[in-house]
């Protein structure tokens, strides 16, 4: 089976794809931090940040719809912020009754709610762009260069590699359970909730043991190729002049956006 569906990388020969992964990771984080720093209702700055996103999108050749479609993932979380609609002091805009409560939407509340959504929407899209235009192994290298401790990047690299192996295994287990989840006429099928939870727990335990034993075998494979506690990797990336210029330019633009937000 192929769970390549997990891999969010989208192969293209674009400017953004060729950029050094460090640059992409760094600029993405700065951009997201900048969004978080923008005050509520800084419309001009939001537009600026959006243009920055559009430009990046254009450079990636992925099409504007690409990140837009995927950004829907953060939408459910917006529910959490709905309460600010009613709770900020301000001019009442409209009010309604619901289950004996009186809800009043204020203008400040609306302003804050919309601002939170815009910030989140822009940030999520930039993160989507990052992983769509950067192969995950390159992203791991970028983390290494950005001084993330080696033990963490190594765990992440293993996680990425075995993610596919183990999720395949889980899906096969789930299939096996499904294909034996039968019923005969006249009986209530399915068993009790506790029994079902126990079966799920057994599957988790089963998976744990197999993963544990697999890690033993992998360790053996590493030993037989000379592993002795240290991991060495080649540095496959070199910062090119263009990479520095792009970083500088991006930071300058983000700074301008910040200034716009505080005018």
């Amino acid at each position, binding site marked *: 089976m192929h769970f390549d569906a997990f891999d969010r990388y989208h192969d293209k020969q674009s400017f953004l794809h060729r950029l050094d992964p460090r640059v992409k990771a760094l600029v993405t984080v700065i951009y997201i931090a900048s969004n978080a720093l923008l005050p509520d209702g800084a419309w001009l700055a939001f537009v600026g940040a959006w243009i920055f996103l559009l430009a990046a999108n254009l450079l990636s050749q992925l099409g504007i719809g690409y990140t837009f479609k995927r950004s829907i993932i953060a939408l459910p979380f917006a529910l959490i912020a709905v309460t600010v609609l009613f709770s900020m002091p301000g001019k009442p805009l409209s009010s309604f009754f619901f289950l004996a409560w009186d809800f009043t939407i204020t203008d400040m509340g609306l302003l804050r709610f919309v601002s939170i959504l815009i910030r989140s929407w822009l940030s999520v899209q930039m993160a989507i762009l990052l992983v769509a235009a950067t192969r995950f192994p390159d992203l791991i290298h970028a983390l290494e260069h950005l001084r993330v401790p080696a033990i963490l990047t190594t765990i992440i690299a293993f996680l990425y590699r075995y993610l596919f192996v183990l999720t395949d295994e889980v899906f096969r287990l789930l299939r096996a359970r499904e*294909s034996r989840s039968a019923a005969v*006429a006249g*009986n209530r099928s399915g068993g009790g909730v506790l029994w079902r939870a126990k079966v799920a727990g057994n599957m988790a335990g089963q998976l744990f043991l197999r993963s544990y034993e697999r890690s033993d075998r992998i360790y053996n494979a590493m030993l037989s190729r000379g592993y002795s506690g240290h991991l060495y990797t080649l540095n496959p990336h070199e910062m090119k002049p263009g990479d520095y210029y792009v970083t500088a330019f991006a930071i300058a633009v983000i700074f301008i956006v910040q200034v716009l937000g505080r005018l």
Partner: protein
Amino acid sequence: MMPVTHVVNNFEMPECDGDVLTVKDLHFSYPDGHAALHGVSFNLCSGDKVALVGPNGAGKSTLMLHLNGILGGHGEVEVAGKCLTRDNLPAIRAMVGLVFQNPDDQLFSPTVFEDVAFGPLHMGLPETDVRARVNAALEAVRMSSYQDRLSHHLSVGEKKRIAIATVLSMNPSLLILDEPSAGLDPRARRTLINLLRELPITMLVSTHDMKLVQELFPRTIIMDEGQIVADGLTHEILEDEKLLTAHGLEKP
């Protein structure tokens, strides 16, 4: 490259209208767009023992997953005259026993007993029936003494047999096995062959082991690139070297 379709002459197949299984013009694409089946049709009759062969990626496992409704493509699948629909699904799963290639995928409970009892328990049978079915299923694969063993500690060959017992306990009328002999040593393989020969159930078995095909199955279906390219008597198909090599197979 389009697969070459060969017409196998001089046929002497058991005649029936597919009383156990009818598949008609089945099409299926995976979510990533890969078209794994395009237009598969065949029948299985009560008592048939049929081999399903073909190169890696031919679509054998995909086809098998359709037969008890784990995957749902376009086309018609009828089990014992019942169409495969959402409502029929649980009933059809009670009739079609699917054994996966890797017994580790099949066995998710700590003990052999719990695993074999899963199907009957899920059907909501009373305890005495469950025990009777477990005993009968383990008896059939000759593993009665293994009830309380931990599945984790069994050898591959033993696991395979338990995996078969987990579906036998559901009293299926059709047994579907995905590559049952992979990874077994010759002795375990021989035991498995004898077991399959003795089981009095209709079965469809996918395999890469052409010798197994020759020994066990009167009828063979060859799949390649999501289509059935041959369906006929095994001894005739195995004579047709051109057909075999065209689909990456070899004479045993």
